[in-house]
């Protein structure tokens, strides 16, 4: 069985006495070390699916297992990175990065060394003593990434981590994430609504559609790391996604006068 195995997973909420279906009949297998993007418009259940795998909001139909074990709650082995960073504003950058290490039985020196290593990895070693409010959005997210990597997780869950950033910062951070992934070899599940971002980052893209949230198709990205956003192959994959999302204008001729 694959590393992450999702079988007939579904989720319903009850809101104002009415049942609302957020996710229906998801079947998905993810291998160790894969970079998976969950892609789709808002309301397609991509964040719901991520939260279910991460253990924050469990599914109420079907099952999700990681490494053969049923997901029953968040695990310290898998770290989630949120769109709004989730940094503790009363802690300095280095103390934020140390957060997950404080439970572990390691000496203070060792902890400081680990913090240093990961701050260097995200190129923020000069901001160790700064507070989050003194940093830009992109820097804050890099702190969150360092904090997540510091506990050496098996899986990184990223819930639209770059959604609040401007386009240029976002592209730079995409490169940083790819770079770090190649070095750290983590399994990554990354939620986004940005098609180009998904094509740029993922090994496989899970395309989802709303009403109710479901998986429309899974696209393998046959590109290597350090992708060219303007290459033909890149555009081809992009095209396939447009196709799956029914965003191609098939009746274009009718509008041409």
């Amino acid at each position: 069985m694959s590393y992450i195995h999702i079988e007939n997973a579904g989720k319903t909420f009850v809101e104002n006495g009415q049942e609302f279906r957020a996710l229906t009949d998801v079947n998905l297998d993810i291998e160790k070390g894969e970079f998976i993007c969950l892609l789709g418009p808002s309301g397609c259940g991509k964040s719901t699916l991520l939260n279910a795998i991460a253990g924050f909001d469990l599914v109420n139909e079907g099952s999700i297992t990681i490494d053969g074990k049923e997901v029953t709650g968040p695990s310290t082995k898998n770290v989630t990175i949120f769109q709004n960073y989730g940094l503790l504003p009363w802690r300095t950058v280095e103390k934020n990065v140390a957060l997950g290490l404080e439970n572990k039985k390691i000496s203070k020196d060792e902890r400081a060394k680990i913090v240093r290593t990961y701050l260097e990895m995200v190129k923020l070693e000069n901001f160790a003593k700064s507070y989050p409010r003194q940093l830009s959005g992109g820097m804050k997210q890099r702190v969150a990434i360092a904090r997540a990597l510091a506990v050496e997780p098996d899986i990184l869950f990223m819930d639209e981590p770059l959604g609040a950033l401007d386009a240029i910062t976002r592209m730079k951070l995409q490169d940083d994430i790819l770079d770090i992934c190649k070095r750290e070899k983590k399994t990554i599940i990354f939620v986004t609504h940005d098609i180009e971002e998904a094509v740029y980052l993922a090994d496989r893209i899970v395309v989802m559609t709303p009403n109710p949230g479901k998986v429309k198709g899974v696209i393998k990205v046959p590109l290597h790391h350090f992708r060219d956003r303007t290459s033909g192959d890149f555009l081809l994959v992009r095209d396939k996604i447009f196709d799956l999302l029914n965003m191609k204008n098939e009746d274009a001729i009718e509008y041409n006068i």
Partner: protein
Amino acid sequence: MKKLNSIKYVIVSIAILIALWQVAFIFSDYSEALFPSPLMAFNALIELLTSGQLLESFITSMGRFAIGYGLSVIVAVILGLILGSLPKVFNYVNPALQLLRPISPTAWMPFVVLLFGIGDLPAIVIIFIAAFFPVLLSTVSAIMKIDDIYFRVSENFGIRQPALLWKVILPAAFPQIANAIHLALGSAWIFLVAGEMVGAQSGLGYQIIDARNNVRADLLLATIFVIGIIGLLLDFLLGIVEKKVLRAWGGE
């Protein structure tokens, strides 16, 4: 330069206040014994200082204030942390709190004197009540308003109670709790004087009543002035402490 400016504001502001007082004195028809001039009140202040009476009243009042206010803040914050983490229990407690909250602490005064007699306790109880409700309710609301993302992050990194309390809950709620503690200081100080006027035979509040009984309006006004100054100083000192803690926890 900024500091110099703020000193300038303080001096000018208080000078205007004293000048208004002097003008009122000049044009008033009351006898000097009933409505004294600023200078007479100042001489009375010197008298209070040199006789040692002021120091004695000050120590008595500050003792009561420290116990009443300190106890109130500690109990209210601890209770607030508990109720804030148990919203279902709070639903049952809240209506009773909302009923008790609008009752002026002075309304309890006769009842408290009946129970405990004249002495330190009535003043302490009044101060306690005055500070208790605002601090309790603010603490509860501060805890309930903590962003869910902090709890998700803590859960993800395996931070559980009791570490969760001092690593996440307290610092996240601190700014709002500190604000309430600060505001409650002012009202507690106001009700200390009220408490001592009715329920005590010593302290600054009693000194006002005593001055009235002896028809010494100059002593009375001097005491009022001192009460104002102490209130101002307490507020200032707490403001410094608040800022220090906030900075230690990375606030603005």
